[in-house]
Structures are given as C-alpha cells and as structure tokens.
C-alpha cells in the first residue's frame, strides 16, 4: 500500500511528538530510539526511515523550535548591532528552553566542531548553516558586507557553542548567568569585527 505524503508527515510528527515527551520525562540517556518507536507506534526500522539517529530526532526538534523563535531578522534591525545579535541569539535559546537539560547531554554530539566525520555531525550542520545565514543578514543590515570571511564565522560559531553549552548547564534562576555571558561574548565578537573601515554600528530608523 502506498503511503501518502500526508501520512508520512503525520508519522514524522508523531515520532517527534513522542520523542519530545520521552526526552522531557526520561532525559537524553534514558530515552532510546526503540522507546520512541514504541511510543510513536511505528517499527524501529520505520523510525530509521525518517531519522537516522536519536541525535537526528533531537536536531529536528531543535530546528522546529528555532523556526518558531520570536525574532524577525528584518523587524529586529532597528537597534545597534550588539542589541540585534543579542536579541536574535537569546530568542533562539529561549525557544529551546524545554529541551535545555536534554541538550546539555546531547549538544556536544550534534554540534561538535571536531566530529566532522561523525554520522551525527550532519544533524547539527543544517542548524549551524541556518543560524549563520541569519547572523550574516543581521551583520549586512548593519553595513557589514557579505560574504563574511569564513574565519569570522567560525569564530562566531565557536563563541556561540560556548554560550550554548553554558546555557544548557546553567542552573541559575531563569538562566540569568547566560545573559551576562552572552553580553560579554558579543562585546568580544563585535570588537573583533572592527577593522580598517570600522563597524557601521548604527541604529536604523524605525519604519
């Protein structure tokens, strides 16, 4: 029997919903792909047709949550570069709050800059690419021309991963300490952008 596209979408959604519930209840280490398959009422083999690994499932959940983050790059570019980057980065972290403790265990596998050949590495690649694309748009809106040198983007991403890892393990009330780290880190990054032409860190007029 042919499986309709709608049925595929529904199955994918069921897998993701089940995974989210199990991660919340049992944590990263306490959840297996078999558990997820059973909860989603699919065979384990079927689950692997949709997602190659547990990391891929989490990466998909992260991608969906980030897409819903309340930050519109175009809308947001009304303040200084620092403020816009801060708002963009923090809105992303807030959208991932429900997965924070799970990400504390899994983020290294998904985002590790070292595990390039890892089967899980690609799961984080699309998140990375999308995030950096947004960052470049914000920089461009503040007069920093595209494309950014690869080393600058790598510096940014390394900084971001550090903030991300800190946030995932941050047990201060409402992860307040991450706010301070993010603030200081952005000052460092933006300072590194200052070159011979300087940084056009102007605020755009509001529409």
């Amino acid at each position, binding site marked *: 029997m042919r499986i309709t596209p709608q049925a595929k979408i529904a199955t994918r959604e069921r897998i993701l919903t089940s995974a989210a519930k199990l991660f919340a209840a049992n944590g990263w280490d306490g959840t297996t792909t078999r558990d997820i398959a059973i909860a989603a009422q699919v065979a384990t083999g079927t689950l692997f047709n949709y997602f190659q690994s547990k990391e891929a499932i989490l990466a998909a959940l992260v991608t969906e949550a980030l897409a819903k983050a309340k930050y519109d790059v175009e809308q947001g570019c009304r*303040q*200084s570069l*620092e*403020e*816009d980057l*801060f*708002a963009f980065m*923090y809105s992303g972290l807030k959208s991932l709050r429900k997965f924070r403790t799970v990400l504390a265990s899994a983020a290294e596998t998904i985002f590790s800059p070292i595990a390039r050949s890892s089967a899980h590495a690609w799961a984080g690649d699309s998140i990375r690419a999308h995030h950096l694309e947004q960052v470049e748009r914000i920089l461009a809106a503040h007069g920093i021309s595209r494309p950014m040198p690869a080393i600058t983007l790598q510096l940014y991403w390394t900084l971001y991963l550090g903030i991300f890892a800190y946030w995932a393990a941050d047990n*201060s*009330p*409402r992860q*307040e*300490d991450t*706010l*301070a780290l993010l*603030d*200081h880190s952005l*000052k460092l990054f933006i300072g590194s952008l200052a070159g011979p032409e300087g940084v056009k860190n102007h605020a755009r007029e509001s529409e």
Partner: protein
Amino acid sequence: MHVNLNELIAALPEDADPETGPGSLAAQEQLRELTADLAQRRVPVNSLHRLWIVGELSAQIALAYFALWVRRGFANAETRERQLMETNLRLALKMFHRLAYMRGAITKVGQALGSFPDIAPDLIAGTLEQLHFDAPPMHFSLIREMFRNELGKNPEDLFQSFDKQAFAAASFGQVHRARLKTGEDVAVKIQYPGVARTIDADFRNLGALLFPLRLGKDWESIQAAFEEIHRMLKQEVDYEREAESLREIGALFQPSDGIVVPNVYPDYSTPRVLTMDFIPGAHLPHFLETHPSQQLRDQFGTKMLLAWTRIYAAHMNYADPSAGNYVFMEDGRLGLLDFGCVQRYSPEECDLVRLSLRLLDSMETFPEFLVRATGASSRDLADPEYIRLMTDATQWVLEPVTWEGPFDFGDDAHLKRGIERFSALLRKRYTRSHPMYVYYHRSVFALRAVLYRLRARVDARAVFQQLTP
C-alpha cells in the same frame, strides 16, 4: 612602619599590561608628578585621567600595604612555606586587581586614604565621587530580558513610557527614567544579571587564597572586615532589602525637614529591579556650577548632616553618602538616593555607638571605648603613642560636633588633618577595629568630602544635640 612611595610601587601587584597598568613607568611618573608640590597647588578635579590613576592607585596602595604586612608575617618562615605563602598572596592580589568592584570596595572603606597625606583635599574629594562599582552598561535588548525575567513583561508594556537610555549608573547596574500608567515619574534601577553569584564566587576564591596566609594578631580583625564587606556587597545587590531601607528611612523624615526620600513602587520592584520616585534636581557638580550663595550651601549642608545623623540615631549607618547620592532640588529640598549600603546596627553595635557618644562629654571613658571598639590590649593601652594616635583620630571625627557654632567643612586643613591622622594609624598598623567601623569610617570620610566640596558651614553640634539622647 614608614614606607616611601617607591617601596609601595614596588609592592604593587603586577599588571597584565606592563605598559599602562598602575605599576608601569608611565603610571609611576604620573604618580610622582601628582604628588610633587601638591600641598602648594590645587590639582583640577576634572582631570579625569589623573583621577583614574589616583582612584586605581589608592586601591593599589592599600593592597601594597597589605602585601607588605603579610610578608612581614611570614618573613621568618621556612623557605618552602614562604614560597607557598607568597604564591597565595600574589594570586589574591591579582584577584583584587582584576575585580573592578573590589577595587571600588577597598577604596570605599577608606583604607587607602591615608596613603596620600600631602594630596590636595579637592583631589581626594573628587576621587571619592568617582568611586562606584562599575557594571558594564546594559543595552536595551538585555534590559528587556531582565524585565521579562523579573516582572514577566517588556518595559514598554509595563510602563506608559520607558527611556531606553540609562540616565545614571548605579551599583552593579543602571537607572532609567520611566512614567507609570498612573502618571508618576519614576526612576527604575536595574541590576546587571548574575552579580550576586559573582560576588559569592569571588569572595570564596579570595578567602581560599587569603585564609592560609599567616597574618598575625590582626588576622581576626581583617577576616571580620572581609566578611563585613562581603555582607554589605550582598546587601547592595538585594534591591528588596534596599526597598525596605527606603521605607524605613523615609518614615524618619517629615515634610518640614526638607529632605526627600523616594517612595518605592512594590508592584514594579523585585530583588533586581527597583522602581521609585524620580527626584528632579541637580547633582553636586551642576549645583556648584550655579555659584550658589553661602547661605544656600549652608542650608543644604545642614540637611545632609541632619539626614545622616537622624539615620544614625535610628541605629543605622547611611554608609554611602557620596556626592552622586544627593539631589539639590530647585525648591531647596535635599533628595537622598541609593539606600543599598545601609548598615543596621546590632544591639552590641548600638552599645558601641552609645559608648562613643559618651566621649562627647569626656574622654575619660576612652580606654573602655578602645577595648570594645578595637580590641585594644592592656599593652596597647599602656603605649602612649597608641593612645595619642587613637585619640587624635577620634577627636578628628568628633571635631565638628564639639565645635561651638557653625563648623566650616570647607576648611582644607580639617580634611587634610583627618587624612593625616588616619594615615598615621595605617602606617603604624593600628587598624584593628570592630567590623562596624569598616563602613562607619568610610561613611564619615565620604560625607566630609561632600561637605568639603560644598564648602558648607554647619552648626553640627546643634544638629547632633537635637537628635541624640
């Protein structure tokens, strides 16, 4: 122990940047330039670069004295132990150096003032004005997140209007103007995130470095002072505590006093956000630019002393009476700001206050006071130099209150005398005291410095007699 400036500079902690730090050649040259002939000429207070150097160096000098004392303590130890102590000491000093707010705290408690006996009083007073804990400025995206965390809403949704730019710095944060939906003009103080935990972690680390050091007979006193500073810093970052102080101190004043303590708006306040009345008016530098009459200066000076004394009579110490915390209102009233640094005296401390007040009538009870306030031993009490220096310092503190008629706080000689007398105590290492005096002396010096800048003449005795039993 008398040390010259070269020895002190040599004892300064190493700076990460040898070219520009306090120990650099440039800084040493500036220090020599600054101290040369200062008794003969006034150094412009608005020379910010020099103020930075003095502010930084005054803290560094305090640390240098501390380092020298500590080294004396373990000079006779075995080599290996001496090396371990030296490592701990250097690490502790580097930490002090790195923590900007600690530099402010060290200088705020007045420990370093005695290091510059010849410095122009204007410069000392100006330096005290500049000393505040520096938090990095917060941009609006960060402010918005703090509001969401603390009050569950964006500031633009909570208030009728909210200025995105801060109009003033505050301890560990900044202050914004806003208007409530009910129309009141308010000042909203917002704290930099994570500060309280930073302070705890820093003190833990410093303690781990300092406690193994052999600091001799003064160690208990230093440890108590260290803990007092920690406690007061934690209090300063608790805005709910500050709100309580505002309410308690506000209740001490009637409209006829002409002293304004802002109301707090509890629905817009949390431990890290404090919303209170905005008090319009000028701060000291702008007020002085209007060339106020001597009468106006005296009136404001009287109100400052009245405010401080009435709070003191209520068994509290308004421990940060610096220039930035007074507002000179157009109608002649004096506004008081920043109640983060209010000491509340325990029953034991109230006893000490009562004992000190008896000295106004007669110095007969001075030995008893010394024993209670400084832990003076019978050996100390038998030492004529100890008694002389402690008497001199105490009499300086009491001088305005024992003066008949208006006391001229603008007299250069009075402020310099205070600095010299406390400097003498520092040099002789007669600094052991009850921890309450850590902030008490800071408070006395800070208020005298403001009254000095104001050139106010105040009948301090009359103010004091009104309020104390």
